[in-house]
């Protein structure tokens, strides 16, 4: 045992759970800020959309696909110079938020896109017929109507990011992933690996449960 007593391990795990949540929620927020407009643009510029622009749609679609096809492990390394530029370091919890956000943004874009596409075309047509502007349709029709589905999509993003953040722990990021690697893997403390895995499972369960409930409350269909 590396730790003198279970209390010490408990505090470490608690602190690193906090770090994981911090990374994941910051990355969710940033990736949603980037991904949401991309998803909206993908929908409205698509064929039959309210601002049909097929060329822009194709270019954006390709960019998003390229972003999604990058393996996360490579993305972290590739982004090191960029991360240093904006955070000052490429190590630690805060620095990990950068690759996490950039990895999740294209995913969020697709999640938002598919949610918005579920909105009945007739409802959008009615809004156009009433004289709505494009901005009004996005903010008053598309997003509110798709809200339940968007929340489920963002919950999915959070869960994915928990997985990614554990991976980031292996290359100098903070959080539960780094505990599993540093104390569990490198120092052969199996009990800590088990503890982190159990914590991650609990986290995912709680987040999914919260997401489902919010989506249910928002859904008026």
């Amino acid at each position, binding site marked *: 045992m590396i730790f003198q007593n279970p209390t010490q391990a408990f505090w470490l795990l608690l602190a690193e759970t906090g770090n994981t949540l911090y990374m994941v929620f910051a990355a969710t927020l940033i990736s949603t800020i980037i991904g949401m407009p991309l998803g909206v643009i993908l929908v409205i510029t698509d064929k039959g959309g309210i601002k049909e622009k097929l060329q822009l749609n194709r270019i954006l679609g390709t960019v998003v696909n390229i972003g999604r096809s990058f393996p996360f492990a490579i993305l972290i390394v590739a982004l090191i110079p960029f991360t240093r530029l904006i955070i000052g370091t490429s190590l630690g919890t805060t620095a990990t938020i950068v690759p996490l956000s950039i990895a999740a943004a294209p995913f969020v874009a697709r999640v938002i896109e598919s949610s918005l596409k579920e909105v*009945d075309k*007739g*409802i959008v*047509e*009615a*809004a*156009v*017929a*009433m*004289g*709505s*502007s494009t901005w*009004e349709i996005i903010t*008053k*029709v598309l997003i*509110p*109507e798709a*809200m339940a589905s968007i929340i489920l999509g963002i919950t999915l993003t959070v869960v994915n990011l928990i997985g990614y953040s554990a991976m980031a722990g292996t290359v100098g990021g903070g959080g539960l992933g780094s505990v599993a690697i540093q104390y569990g893997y490198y120092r052969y403390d199996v009990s800590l690996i088990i503890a982190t895995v159990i914590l991650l499972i609990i986290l995912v369960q709680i987040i999914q449960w919260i997401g489902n409930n919010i989506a249910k409350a*928002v859904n*008026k*269909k």
Partner: protein
Amino acid sequence: MIEIKGVYKEFKGKSNNVEALKNINMHIEQGDIFGIIGLSGAGKSTLVRCINRLEEPTKGEVFIKGKNIMALNSAELREMRKKIGMIFQHFNLLNSRTVAENIAYPMEIAKVPKEDREKRIDELLKLVELEEKRESYPSQLSGGQKQRVGIARALANHPDVLLCDEATSALDPKTTQSILKLLKKINETLGLTIVIITHEMEVIKQICTKVAVMEAGEVVESGPVPKVFAHPTHPITKSFVQNISHDIPVELLNRIDHNRQLFRLSFEGIKTSQPILSRMIKKYGVEANILLGGIDHLQQTFIGSLIIELIGEEGEIKKAVAFLQESDVECEVISQ
């Protein structure tokens, strides 16, 4: 009120282009309840969408209150649309908003102050008789109630015209009746011009003052409802009229021969009250057997439709038919 001049609409397909509208000319007057009837694919939905430019006509002009809407830029078009109410077959309400919030939507985008919006919502809910559903969500309403909300929403900004796109097609006959009554009431009390797209003859019969019959992208017949349906000239119009009358059972068709012939008689107005048939029977050596028939009340007039079997010498039958035609009764031979 609405003037449609030489409107064409072509949809570009992969292999060939489809002409959805061919040279449509139409004049809709203030206060009209103008019906456009046709089978699905006739182009009626495309036509009504050209009135608020949900579809852009390929060619032609549309005037609303003397203003050429084809000349409007997108900002002007949005302003114009705020004065054109529209209701839909599937209601198209916002599921995430309550009844009151749905009715508020068009006023929000027209920048009506909140206080005035609330007042107007109360007024409209009273008009469509849904006061108790103010805070309900669309998923908690029946089809008829949803359409009432649709109507209230369409009227929110005091429109000049109300476009109805198959507004009753998803409703059962009883609910259809109540929606039609409501539209009629709105037309009478507010003097609102209403354009109704439908494939149901009942709708035209119940409330329309004028009608245009469409087939394959063209208006084949139009005019005041009683006139068009009392003397339908185009086969498609005839089929709509016969639809409200009766279909002929096969057993009757099977027994036709030279001395036993079937006719469809159509007549209108005052003639429905004259004993033309009995006069014919007295005058000629034929027997008449009324098989099916009815007199329909169409707006201010009546139109009658009878299927009769004439039994007698072939020559006498011919004379009898000639007599009917002289009496302004249309006779159509029904063959097998």
